[in-house]
């Protein structure tokens, strides 16, 4: 599937122009969507291949990767509790809240905090094939409407969201309901691609939970 966001970059490359302005534009979009350098480069590569063009030289590769790094650095310096693209909480805010839940009482260092047992992460994800703004809006809408008010609802990436939920009442059943409802609203692609919703238990250690969230955000 050709990524239309790459069009300015592919055009610049085709015309032999300096790729940096177009790369910066496309990279900024990728950073907003939380996409990795691999995804960015592979998307560019696939677009060039689809157009029958030769692979880019080293200088272009370097410009493109620097543009991605600049865009991500800009995102890094704008970190706040709210994710600017989705309006939901940021990954960093989710990390903070999970850290708070799992913090142990200093007087009882060996006693794991019950937060890990009582809370779960409900994760909802759209496949790339269903990625579109209206679909993302529906996904967000489902999560906001079906989770209790005040829930920490975070944008893990451009197409994956998570809610930090009390395990009871029945977080896994809620996941099933959201899954069915989303599939009804968005449909299933010809190849059977459909939204996925599931729950992740929290590790008892802060470090483990931090790692889990970082992995889910990749």
């Amino acid at each position, binding site marked *: 599937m050709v990524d239309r966001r790459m069009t300015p970059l592919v055009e610049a490359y085709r015309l032999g122009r300096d790729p940096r302005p177009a790369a910066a534009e496309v990279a900024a979009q990728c950073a907003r969507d939380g996409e*990795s*350098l*691999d995804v960015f*480069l*592979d998307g*560019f*590569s*696939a677009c*060039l*291949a689809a157009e029958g063009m030769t*692979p*880019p030289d*080293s200088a272009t*590769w*370097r410009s493109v*990767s*620097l543009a*991605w*790094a600049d865009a*991500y*650095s800009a*995102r*890094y310096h704008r*970190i*706040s*509790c*709210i994710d600017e693209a989705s309006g939901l*909480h*940021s*990954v*960093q*805010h989710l*990390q*903070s*809240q999970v*850290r*708070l839940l799992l*913090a*142990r*009482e*200093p007087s009882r260092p060996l006693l794991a*905090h019950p937060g890990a047992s009582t809370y779960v992460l409900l994760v909802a994800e759209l496949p790339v094939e269903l990625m579109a703004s209206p679909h993302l809006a529906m996904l967000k809408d489902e999560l906001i409407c079906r989770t*209790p*008010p*005040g*829930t*920490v609802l975070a944008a893990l990436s451009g197409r994956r969201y998570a809610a930090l939920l009390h395990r009871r009442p029945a977080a896994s059943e809620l996941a099933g309901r959201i899954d069915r409802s989303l599939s009804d609203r968005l449909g299933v692609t010809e190849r059977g691609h459909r939204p996925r919703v599931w729950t992740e238990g929290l590790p008892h250690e802060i470090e483990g939970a*931090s*790692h889990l*969230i*970082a992995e889910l*955000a*990749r």
Partner: protein
Amino acid sequence: MTAAFGRPEGSSDRVTGHHGTADRVRALATSYAENGESLEVLYADLDLVIDAGDRAAHDDLLRLAGRTWADAFMTRLNRLTCADPITGLSSVDHLTTHVEWLGGRGGGLEDRVLVVVDVVSRRDDVGRRNEKQFRRRLRIAVVADTLDAWFGTAGVVGAAVSSRRVAVVVHRQEALVMRAADLAESITTRLRLASDGHAARVGVVPLPAEVADAVSMIQDLGRPPAEPARAGSDDLRADSGTVGRKFSGPA
């Protein structure tokens, strides 16, 4: 994945075979990302140390470095919390979002209070601008460390609401008001404020029942005072805290 952007077939072998440096480049790229160095700096440094004679191997190494740096940078980004890694204090934005979360869980804010610590020193006005800022940051770090020792990290969220004031949300405890004076003394001693004729001031403030009021109160704490505070003024003494004029002290 095409040969141009992916790891080209056998590229890793070629790099390793020629220079034996692929692992070192990975380690270097990871280290740069974890230490906040930019990709541009990494590329520039690698240009200086990698033999450019073999163009293909040079490019392979740079691509390997770029991908590794990007991976480590994203991991670092996604593992950050809203807290400053040095002091452990959160941003004011996070503190207010946390209060909104506490209010939204249904339990209300009745079981929490704000502990507000003010530190001011005559030494703030001495030296160049950067020195003054550095001293203030250092003092805030000491206050954060003291608060951490007193309250621990369980259920406690705090922020430097200004360069001289720290506020933490903690569970309400009967003894807290009594302990506030001890906390103020402890911070005064650690920062050696008494030598300047100053003392840290600690206030314990109940959070308003309404979340919006609580958020507004926290934001007000960071605003500059209407009038400059005099040394030794007691506008924020250790007491069961009132909001308003008592919080118009040094900020």
